[in-house]
């Protein structure tokens, strides 16, 4: 080994505290990047391969009853490659020993062979045999939750009648990667089942002989999705078509992709924070090392080492530190990625779910960390290369301090505080970067807790204040308003109110948007429209109230006339007055008074959902009866959903908080410790002189640590602000679906502040120990 390399290794040993803290920061950044990127890529690849191999459809449509004879017309739509017609129906699964029934969906398989589209993957067992009317394939995750296996029997309630089914296999399908019964909030593995059965076995029960109520299509390459959808809607309209939609609106796909989008976004933000902190630390530590080794650098140059070889020597040092951090990060990231995949495995159902370690990702991670470190080192390296050896032989000229007009501010503080302030003022860049770095630690904590706070707030507002009903009953299609009366008449029901929702296409000039218009009763008390501040909003008479973001995007203001075309039932275009805008929390919506909407639609009073206020004792029986009504698509209980959500969040929240606390501590300790070490070594001569003069340890600690305290204190408000800003950006990545209000609880701010302060204190104490052992004579004896 060359002597210069030996020096390098020994220098690393000398700097071990700092090397360790920088390595940890780099490792965290690399680990998060690798974990998230590999999870993201693995899921994406798995999903795409699964979709392709199991022919996941591009377009989906539901209708009431379409005769089989219509199928050729669908096939003939230009741009359609494949068609699969199916029967779909909701079923209830009475679970023994539980008030709550699981819900499920029966999906028909062609009478022979496999489906042309949305094919099933059979984990164990076989397809139902044609002619065996009780055989079914069961969704694997449901079977696992309820300990069911091929050969087991299971009863379901279909159209009010109990049917015994025999499980012959466990299966998955690309349609149910995320399998939920229509309500993400109350998702729970094992609460939703899918049964695949031969068409002949169920058409009688569905009263759909010779017909279908669902069709899925695959497009030819280059075909226009919108044109095919329009075409399909026209064909299905006479048969009660509910409006076809593309893959982007397919619930499972939509959920999976928005989850992936969120993951990708975090893949960028979080590692960026770590690597900028790493760059900063490299900068601080290297700058100090250069200062300490000034005469060594000069000696090397005097001995005949070229500027570039001396520069390279220090670059090697930085590279080695980053290298160690990267290796650690790769190991940690691989492990974390596995953990992350484990979490997704519980939610996303794929035939195989493998955590693929893409070498490209590893390479990118290492490269990014190297680039950021070199960027951090650039300034010092330039200094090393440019250092004139003759000047470096001389002791450095004393740092120049100046008095300033601001001195009166510190005049009352005494000389120690003035030293602290002059030091801060002399290196404003260092102060700025340190403060920014520390504020990142605070920000990371706020970002993490922010999501939790906002969801909490949203849940509070939505579940406690907006949704005041005990039960909401959603129908498969709108029903005459008298259904409200019949539900009100059920045992235990105190109050019942109907809502009407109409999916529409809204047009204003060239701008067009699809959205849902909610018709709400004027005197209703069970469902209240609230704005982002949680205040009650009144819907103006006669007109349409639009989400402000939507109005802005479409260039619509109050008083404008817009064109509205329902996507269900009679699709005639109508004009409606925009009466105002509201900043609500639920994305792109429209609101009208129920009667005004009915008038606009030109229909008899209809409702899509009925809200009930119910005597708690009567709930189980009511639930059972509602599930058995064929017209009912969804029964939701806000209170139960809230409870379930809180339960599921509890564990995840704790895990997330722990991970974030770890990361924030890595950053805070990294910065405070390194700054303190650097300050100590730069100023040990001053501090020793002060001790010789008669200052106490506590007093000289104050000079050193006062600076750090100020950095930490300054970083807190900045970090809290940045965290709130970044959290806001993360949450509003999909404002069209969900607009979360920017809410950060005081607890979060206190928490972020305390964790950062504790990490700072810990690192300060580490350095304080060194300060206590300062060798007074030794420091003063050596040449500066």
């Amino acid at each position, binding site marked *: 080994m*060359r*002597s*210069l390399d*030996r*020096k390098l290794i*020994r*220098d690393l040993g*000398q700097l071990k505290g700092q090397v360790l803290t920088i390595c940890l920061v780099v490792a965290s950044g690399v680990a998060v990047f690798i974990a998230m990127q590999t999870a993201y890529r693995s899921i994406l690849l798995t999903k795409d391969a699964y979709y392709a191999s199991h022919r996941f459809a591009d377009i989906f449509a539901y209708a009431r009853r379409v005769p089989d004879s219509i199928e050729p017309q669908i096939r003939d739509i230009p741009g359609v490659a494949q068609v699969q017609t199916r029967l779909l129906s909701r079923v209830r699964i009475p679970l023994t020993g539980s008030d709550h029934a699981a819900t499920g969906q029966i999906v028909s398989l062609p009478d022979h062979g496999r489906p042309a589209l949305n094919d099933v993957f059979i984990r164990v067992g076989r397809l139902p045999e044609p002619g065996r009317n009780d055989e079914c394939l069961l969704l694997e995750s449901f079977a696992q939750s309820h300990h069911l296996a091929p050969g087991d029997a299971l009863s379901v309630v279909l159209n009010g009648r109990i049917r015994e089914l025999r499980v012959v296999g466990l299966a998955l399908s690309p349609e149910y990667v995320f399998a939920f019964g229509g309500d993400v909030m109350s998702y729970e593995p094992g609460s939703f089942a899918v049964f695949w059965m031969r068409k002949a076995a169920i058409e009688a029960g569905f009263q759909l002989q010779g017909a279908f109520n669902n069709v899925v299509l695959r497009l030819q390459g280059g075909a226009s999705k919108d044109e095919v959808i329009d075409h399909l809607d026209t064909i299905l309209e006479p048969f009660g078509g509910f409006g076809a939609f593309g893959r982007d609106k397919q619930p499972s796909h939509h959920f999976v992709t928005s989850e992936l989008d969120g993951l990708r976004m975090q893949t960028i933000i979080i590692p960026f924070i770590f690597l900028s902190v790493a760059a900063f630390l490299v900068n601080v530590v290297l700058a100090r090392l250069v200062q300490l080794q000034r*005469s*060594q650098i*000069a*000696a*090397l*140059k*005097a*001995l*005949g*080492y*070229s*500027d570039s070889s001396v520069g390279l020597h220090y670059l090697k040092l930085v590279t080695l530190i980053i290298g160690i951090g990267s290796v650690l990060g790769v190991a940690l990231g691989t492990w974390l990625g596995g953990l992350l995949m484990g979490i997704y495995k519980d939610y996303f159902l794929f035939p195989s779910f493998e955590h693929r370690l893409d070498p490209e990702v590893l390479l990118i991670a290492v490269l990014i960390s190297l680039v950021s470190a070199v960027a951090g080192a650039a300034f010092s390296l330039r200094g090393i290369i440019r250092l*004139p*050896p*003759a*000047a470096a*032989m001389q002791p450095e*000229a*004393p740092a*120049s301090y100046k008095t300033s007009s601001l001195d009166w501010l510190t005049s009352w503080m005494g000389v120690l505080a003035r030293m602290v302030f002059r030091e801060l003022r002399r290196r404003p860049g260092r102060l700025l970067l340190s403060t920014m770095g520390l504020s990142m630690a605070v920000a990371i904590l706020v970002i993490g807790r922010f999501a939790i706070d906002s969801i909490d707030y949203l849940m509070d507002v939505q579940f406690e204040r907006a949704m005041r009903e005990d039960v909401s009953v959603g129908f498969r299609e709108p029903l005459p308003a008298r259904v409200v009366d019949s539900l009100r008449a059920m045992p235990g029901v105190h109050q019942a109110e109907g809502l009407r929702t109409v999916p529409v296409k809204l047009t204003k000039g060239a701008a067009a948007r699809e959205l849902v218009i909610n018709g709400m009763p004027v005197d209703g008390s069970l469902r209240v429209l609230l704005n982002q501040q949680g205040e009650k909003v009144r819907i103006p008479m006669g007109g349409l109230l639009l989400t402000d973001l939507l109005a802005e995007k479409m260039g619509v203001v109050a008083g404008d006339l817009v064109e509205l075309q329902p996507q269900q039932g009679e699709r005639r275009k109508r004009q409606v007055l925009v009466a105002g805008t509201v900043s609500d929390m639920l994305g792109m919506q429209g609101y009208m008074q129920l009667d005004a909407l009915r008038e606009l639609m030109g229909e008899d009073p209809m409702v899509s959902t009925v809200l009930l206020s119910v005597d708690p004792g009567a709930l189980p029986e009511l639930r059972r009866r509602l599930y058995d009504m064929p017209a009912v698509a969804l029964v939701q209980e806000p209170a139960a959903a809230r409870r379930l959500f809180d339960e599921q969040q509890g564990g995840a929240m704790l895990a997330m908080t722990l991970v974030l606390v770890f990361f924030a501590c890595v950053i805070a300790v990294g910065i405070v410790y390194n700054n303190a070490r650097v300050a100590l070594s730069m100023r040990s001569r001053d501090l020793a002189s002060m001790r010789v003069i008669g200052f106490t340890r506590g007093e000289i600690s104050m000079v050193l640590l006062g600076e750090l305290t100020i950095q930490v204190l300054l970083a807190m408000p900045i970090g809290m602000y940045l965290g709130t800003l970044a959290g806001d950006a993360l949450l509003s990545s999909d404002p069209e679906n969900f607009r979360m209000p920017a809410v950060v609880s005081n607890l979060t701010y206190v928490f972020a502040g305390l964790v950062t302060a504790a990490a700072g204190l810990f690192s300060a104490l580490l350095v304080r120990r060194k300060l206590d052992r300062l060798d007074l004579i030794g420091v003063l004896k050596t*040449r500066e």
Partner: protein
Amino acid sequence: MDKVLSARDITKVYRMGEVDVYALRGVSLALGAGELVALVGASGSGKSTLLNIMGGLDIPSAGSIRYRDHDLSSASEAELTRYRREHVGFVFQFYNLIPSLTARENVALVTEIAEDPMRPEDALELVGLGTRLDHFPAQLSGGEQQRVAIARAVAKRPDILLCDEPTGALDFHTGVKVLEVIETINRELGTTTALITHNAPIAKMANRVVTLVDGLIASDESNAELTPAKDIRW
């Protein structure tokens, strides 16, 4: 006599903090092959600046400096580096050893980049440290550290040895030992040597004594009789 190094009308201005310092104000000096020249003068008289310029560590603000037929005053940084690497050995008052390297490794630092170097062990043997090869600077006395620095300087078999107050930080006894080493190298290897010193007696071992005052050469005298280093007292 064959001139190895010659300086003509050298001026050097430094900017120290916020003031301009005239270190040299037009100095002309030549070193002959195998000569041992002592540079004496008060603090701030410009001795170190002159030495640094002769060693290619610095360039003059005005005037010219030549090593044999190479013009150092207009040389690029790379050329100066090559000049130092191939021809010059430096010894400093504060040794400037790398604290994280042992004596042997400190010398190896030079032998690894020199063209026809001695073995580090031989160089250390030459300065009487053959038994202290694997000691770190912190484990060596000041005199020993300075001898390692000299070993490091001569291990490349330089044409010119430049010593800036090599005994400045040493007590009398160790100082003499160091001077003996320098003397041996000058006499036995024939290395042209320039030596800065504060101490008039030390100058008696030199062929010539050049006195600087306030950035100018006040006198340049040859010693008729050389005092061996071992007999020097101060």
